[in-house]
């Protein structure tokens, strides 16, 4: 199988380049990450992140044949050759397929990704009804792989100011949580011309999410709740 991989080492190269590789797949090579592991056995200078190798940690998010995916859960079967692997678009490249996620996580921390509740804690835990818990479905599953934010044109245009789909999905996750008491502050924080309202509902985020979540829907819910609060 033929591969074309984005190579860039800022210490050695002035410009990035695509390097071609040929690989004989083994019987147990089913996913793109399997092939990458084998390629690294050939050329140990290829840089990429990976950890859990089963779609849970989100560290091996990359652009595969023009679409952001997780290498560990993307089947090799059916991929057009040469399989072109690039780093997540719109993010600064550290080396090869490794990108700098600093800004991504800064945006994530800005939305205060934790429950804010200053009421005295109950003896055991803050309970939710099954209905209240159900509201978190489709939100809590986000693994922060950045496939969505990196594929969002609004994020490319305003990377510093627009929080991006991943952070906004997480914001909705805490806004809607019945145990959280900071909903007005959270909504007020997001009522900003850049932080939330740069979203043009292009829906690339929903299209590429490897966990089949819909950040676009979460963003729409935040807007609706802001309207209800202000109306």
């Amino acid at each position, binding site marked *: 199988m033929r591969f074309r991989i984005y190579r860039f080492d800022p210490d050695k190269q002035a410009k990035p380049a695509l390097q071609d590789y040929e690989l004989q797949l083994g019987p147990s090579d089913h996913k793109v990450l399997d092939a990458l592991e084998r390629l690294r056995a050939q050329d140990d200078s290829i840089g990429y992140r990976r950890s859990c190798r089963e779609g849970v940690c989100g560290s091996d998010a990359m652009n595969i044949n023009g679409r952001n995916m997780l290498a560990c859960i993307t089947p090799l079967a059916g991929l057009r050759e040469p399989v072109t692997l690039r780093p997540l678009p719109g993010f600064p490249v550290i080396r090869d397929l490794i990108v700098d996620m600093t800004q991504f996580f800064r945006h994530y921390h800005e939305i205060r990704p934790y429950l804010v509740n200053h009421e005295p804690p109950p003896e055991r835990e803050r309970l939710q009804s099954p209905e209240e818990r159900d509201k978190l479905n489709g939100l809590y599953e986000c693994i922060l792989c950045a496939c969505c934010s990196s594929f969002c044109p609004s994020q490319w*245009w*305003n990377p510093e100011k627009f929080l991006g789909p991943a952070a906004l999905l997480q914001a909705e996750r805490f806004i809607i949580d019945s145990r959280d008491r900071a909903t007005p502050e959270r909504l007020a924080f997001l*009522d900003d011309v850049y932080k939330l*309202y740069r979203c043009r509902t292009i829906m690339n985020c929903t299209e590429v999410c490897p966990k089949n979540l819909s950040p676009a829907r979460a963003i729409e819910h935040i807007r609706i709740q802001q*309207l209800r609060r202000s109306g």
Partner: protein
Amino acid sequence: MTLLSGQRAFVFQRLSALVLLAYIAAAAVRLALGAPVTLAQWQAWAAQPLAAAALLVLALALVAHAWVGIRDVVLDYVRPFAVCVTVLGIAATGLALLAAWSALILVSHAL
């Protein structure tokens, strides 16, 4: 809502879109029932107080809708900040003049 609220523009854009849609639907019905043919007939139609008022609302909704659209494009693409503010200022002035001109024409014909 804060001064730099994104929500205000979001609401303006949707409300103005509703006005535009309502006008298009009403105009389609009106034209289906018999459209003015000559220029004089069009002028006479536009000079009726109700038609002139509806046209004025349409013009204002169109300007508001265009403003939010232009503002979004400028905020997304135009750098640096000083150039962005200048382009927004020019766009706002142009749209305001357009709205005032439309209002002037409609009011002068309707009176």
